[in-house]
């Protein structure tokens, strides 16, 4: 159960004493509760589930993972797939 969608935090405000934000999912926006992600600032990406931000999306880590996928492909082209082990980012 875990439909979690990345979105960008646009504008943070307080509702009923709770930290809320408008989050943009790429052309649609939704009001999302930020109570569990006090570190999240406007402009950050977050993962949203059932109207709640459950974490700040670590953009650097996302890029590292993608880079690792690219490197795996390149290594393989060089016939060096065996050289790749658990290259955790």
């Amino acid at each position, binding site marked *: *159960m875990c439909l979690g969608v990345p979105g960008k935090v646009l504008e943070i405000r307080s509702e009923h004493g*709770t930290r809320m934000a408008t989050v943009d999912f790429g052309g649609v926006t939704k009001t999302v509760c930020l109570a569990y992600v006090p570190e999240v600032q406007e402009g950050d990406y977050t993962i949203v589930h059932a109207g*709640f931000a459950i*974490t700040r999306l670590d953009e650097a880590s996302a890029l590292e993972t993608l880079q690792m996928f690219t490197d795996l492909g390149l290594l*393989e082209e060089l016939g060096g797939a065996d050289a790749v*082990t658990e290259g955790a980012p």
Partner: protein
Amino acid sequence: MKYLDEFNDPALARSLFEQIDAAATKSWAIMEVCGGQTHSIIRNGIDQLLTDRVELIHGPGCPVCVTPLEMIDRALAIAARPNVLFTSFGDMLRVPGSRDDLFSVKAKGGDVRVVYSPLDAVNLAQEHPDKEVVFFGVGFETTAPANAMAVFQARERGLQNFSMLVSHVLVPPAIEALMTSPTSRVQGFLAAGHVCTVMGTRQYEPLAERYAVPIVVTGFEPLDVLDGIRRCVLQLEAGSSEVENAYPRAVRAEGNQPAQEMLARVFETCDRQWRGIGMIPMSGWRLKSEFAAFDAERRFDVGELSVSEPVRCRAGDVLQGVLKPDQCECFGKECTPRTPMGATMVSSEGACAAYFQYRRLDPPAAVRRG
């Protein structure tokens, strides 16, 4: 969309498929725990394209599927009451109870409404002081912080007319139950990424050690799932059994601390029935006594419920990975999403529904890899 499209790239997927193919020298059976992963695997045909040496077993991580029948019947009884405004995630509306589902209750005049977030249900309670607003609080650890906050806010706002029917389930006890089951063939797990976003990864370490299984925390997009499989295969081939994080952009070892604090304030662990599986000790959360006033189970006396499950439904075997959905004799015949015998045929995350939707006949056009 940023941080989604990149993880759907076909060229990178191809290289991951090849990596897995190269890594797997023996046959391995890996369970993806979360129904969201099952959906992604079946919808994108990842299982079609994967080497035959890696078998994916679809796990019980679909809260809709495992919510006990008794709880569904209780929800139906509460929702049918004249003064109740019953709110739920859309997922639960077609789940069959012993006789009915929430859709039928709505059709017969019950006030049943779909909400996106449990906070919407709290807002409804505030807007309708004359109504008893009940929220069906189902889900795994991912959803629990949202539900906990709804109860907490209802108390903060002094709402007397809000309550929650809580049927939360937890992943680690389910993994434990699977590993101790004599019929289990699972050799490695893809753990549910967003569950770990909330709870962290440390609670899986004793499990990996005790049962000598690799547990790879895995995301939901095709590349995430493939990387989870790749890492799991590498571990199996190397004979290692570590907890590994293949979803670091969303999961930290310690999880989400503020969410865990709220969970500890509102919920306590309890034994829980899993539909199709049975009772798993300490596998659920219920409201703490401090929040008993918001417990719909206490607020609404629905009398004795006698539950009955279709005898021939083998959802339990499917949930435990013993049976593939299309191996069930009822699959696609008397049991379809339109006439589901078990909950696994209802949820879009349920393995039976996913098979029916995307795989009920092998189209001749289907291409195997290579």
